[in-house]
């Protein structure tokens, strides 16, 4: 059975489809009017006598203005409506569940905060906003879920994000939409949207690798990051406690927000943004740590920041073990 319209399985799908219907309605109207006019004129004014030369019809300025202004007004609705959906797509809600995606030729590697890892599959609970933080190990890919009507490129050297709330339990296509080489068309997978209970069972059922933050902490120790980044701020490098999401004053005088991208850059290109008051001592960890490892470190550093309202760090025990 050939479908003619894709299923709607996210909060964005009905919104995008409504905008599509508006555009279709406008397009069909214009097409019908133009085609009808052409057919009518072609028949009504077909050449009836040889040697016929019709009188010239002079330009009507009012008509010209009307057929510029009216379509322009209709297109501005297309612009505004489309932009409002786009803006919403670019602003994940604060309570969204974080999942991390690494694309490589030709597979999707996915890590859940709880530690579950999957390849070319993504299990998510229905009804919860999901925020994906994505990067690529090699070339540009694009994370495309037609049933959700969302797509975002996955670019090497930076993090991109996308979010959606799945609204319907089921199994949906995941496609790589940016041409990425020989097996581009094989870089596909499935999104499994599950009832929350089933999702919990799935989370518990898999092999436990430890949570992402725990793995990040192990990596933090293996790479001896704590030798300089001491938790109490007495080290040669700034403390990472409470760093995430805060503004950071740089040696250049600029201020940046310590988001995922900033932390990634600081690990791989430490000289790019040096914190005010510190020396550029840190070596690069490019090549020493994988993109997945960097994501684990990011999640660990995030865990050192108090959740809004809770007033304490999430893992005080870890901080103690680090500082001693």
């Amino acid at each position: 059975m050939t479908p003619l319209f894709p299923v709607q399985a996210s909060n964005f799908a009905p919104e995008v489809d409504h905008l599509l219907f508006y555009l279709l309605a406008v397009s069909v109207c214009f097409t019908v009017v133009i085609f009808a006019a052409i057919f009518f004129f072609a028949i009504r004014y077909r050449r009836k006598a040889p040697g016929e030369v019709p009188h010239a019809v002079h330009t009507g300025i009012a008509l010209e203005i009307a057929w510029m202004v009216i379509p322009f007004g209709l297109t501005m609705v297309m612009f505004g409506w489309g932009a409002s959906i786009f803006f919403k797509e670019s602003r994940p809600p604060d309570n969204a569940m974080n999942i991390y995606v690494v694309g490589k030729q030709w597979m999707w590697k996915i890590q859940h905060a709880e530690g579950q890892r999957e390849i070319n599959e993504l299990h998510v609970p229905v009804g919860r906003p999901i925020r994906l933080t994505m990067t690529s190990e090699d070339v540009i890919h694009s994370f495309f879920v037609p049933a959700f009507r969302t797509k975002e490129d996955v670019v090497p050297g930076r993090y991109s994000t996308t979010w959606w709330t799945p609204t319907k339990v089921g199994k949906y296509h995941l496609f790589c939409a940016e041409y990425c080489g020989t097996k581009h068309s094989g870089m596909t997978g499935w999104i499994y949207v599950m009832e929350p209970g089933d999702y919990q069972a799935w989370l518990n059922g898999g092999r436990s690798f430890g949570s992402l933050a725990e793995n990040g902490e192990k990596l933090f120790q293996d790479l001896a990051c704590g030798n300089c980044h001491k938790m109490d701020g007495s080290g040669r490098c700034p403390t990472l406690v409470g760093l995430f999401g805060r503004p950071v004053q740089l040696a250049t005088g600029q201020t940046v927000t310590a988001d995922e991208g900033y932390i990634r850059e600081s690990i791989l290109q430490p000289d790019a943004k040096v914190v005010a008051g510190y020396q550029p001592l840190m070596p690069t960890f490019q090549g020493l740590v994988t993109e997945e490892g960097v994501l684990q470190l990011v999640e660990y550093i995030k865990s050192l920041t108090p959740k809004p309202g809770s007033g304490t760090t999430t893992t005080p025990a870890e901080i103690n073990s680090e500082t001693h």
Partner: protein
Amino acid sequence: MTTAAVQERENYLNASYGIKSWLLTKDHKRIALLYLFTITLFFALGGVMASLIRIELLTPQGGLVSSETYNKLFTMHGVIMIFFFLIPSIPAVLGNFLLPLMIGARDLAFPRINLLSWYLLVVGGALALFAMFAGGVDTGWTFYTPYSTSYSNTWVIATALGIFVAGFSSILTGLNFVVTVHRMRAPGMTWFRMPLFVWAHYATALIQILGTPVLAVTLLLIFCERVFHIGIFDPALGGDPVLFQHLFWFYSHPAVYIMILPAMGVISELVSTFSRKPIFGYGFVAFSSMAIAVLGFLVWGHHLFVSTQSVYAGMVFSFLSYFVAIPSAVKVFNWTATLYKGSISFETPMLYAFGFIGLFTIGGLTGLFVASLGIDVHVTDTYFVVAHFHYIMVGGAIMGYLGGLHFWWPKITGRMYPEGWARLSALIIFLGFNLTFFPQFILGYLGMPRRYHVYSPEFQVLHVLSTAGASVLAVGYLLPLIYFTWSLRYGKVAGANPWAATGLEWKTPSPPPVHNFDEIPVVTHGAYDYSTVAGEVMQVG
């Protein structure tokens, strides 16, 4: 047969003979024919690749060719069709032949540079063909980094070099046209007496001159990164991969207007001639070409909505993209209004004009979909986009090219094409085109990504429809090749003005003499004044 009578009068075709008289010619009309021959070969080659792609997509599992080969096929199809067929098509063939004739000049401003332009296209094309036969290239015609600079093991440099060289052909042609229009108009040929074909080519030439150098720079940067590992685009070398997309589309979006504006110029001539009416809103149609050329440079970022470009940049580019829609719509409305109270006849060129308006309307309206951020996030890089740009570039540009070729065929060759066969092929092309590309809109909205060798089985029915359409389309394209060739020898001899058209090109014999006009005409009327051709109108009927 009246062959003897035709050959008695000296014209640009029989003035000299031999291979050298063609390869070293400085006559814009002969150079136009060199281009015609060259780009027809490229069109055939690109068409064979399109056919292989469509046959491959009959089945979802990708059994006919390997993924490597499939990727090379769509890459070379795009490279050949865009850089070696569509961009030179109307300007270099019809524009070259007609621009001097239409403004009452004896040649283009720089005849030697005109010949050089053709050689540059040939050299560029030869490099691209070399790359193709040496092993091909698999980056897509878009050459996205870092795949093209650090990952692809194919003939990227040779192909890029071919496009680089062909780009200079385009720049020089544009330069030649701009200077010719400024400096070589006949007495009385004021700017607002120029045919709209000339206005469209003037606007196109500006894009060729201003846009193509950016493509050249971009390809040079690819070369630097691929050969010398200078980090420009690859983040592993410290570069920015999205920067490439900005540079590439800064040329390649306006390049779409290099392909469509000349076709719009052709359609204006056809609609006027076959309804015997001046184009309604001449000034608006002329300025809409200029508006498209200028605004076309401000919208490149709409190819980057999901590229991690800033959200606000995305909004600005979406907003500006809708401004380009208006001058395009103005043209369609004015062509339609021209038909009102006209005297409409249905020779083949007019059928192509109707086909163009229909397909361009659909292509243009679906452009509104992809300019809308919310929709584009879903449909970008799917078959929806593939369908959209084929409606513009095949449904629009090629319909315009074929319509123009039929219209001016008697002027170029001195012979008429067979009307019945030509009408049939116009109909076949229109139907085949729609059957090929309309299902792709549905495929795209369903989520079928472009550039997929293997695909999910639920998309197969629509792919089969598309392939069926492509075989009809192939027949439609083969027919003109056959009957045009046939007509060179057996076609009815054409008079100077077989359509009772108003342009200066119809005031000189068919085929024109070497220097175009025995006496440079003095222009006293606007472009579409049918009172000036009352005598021809009586003859033609």
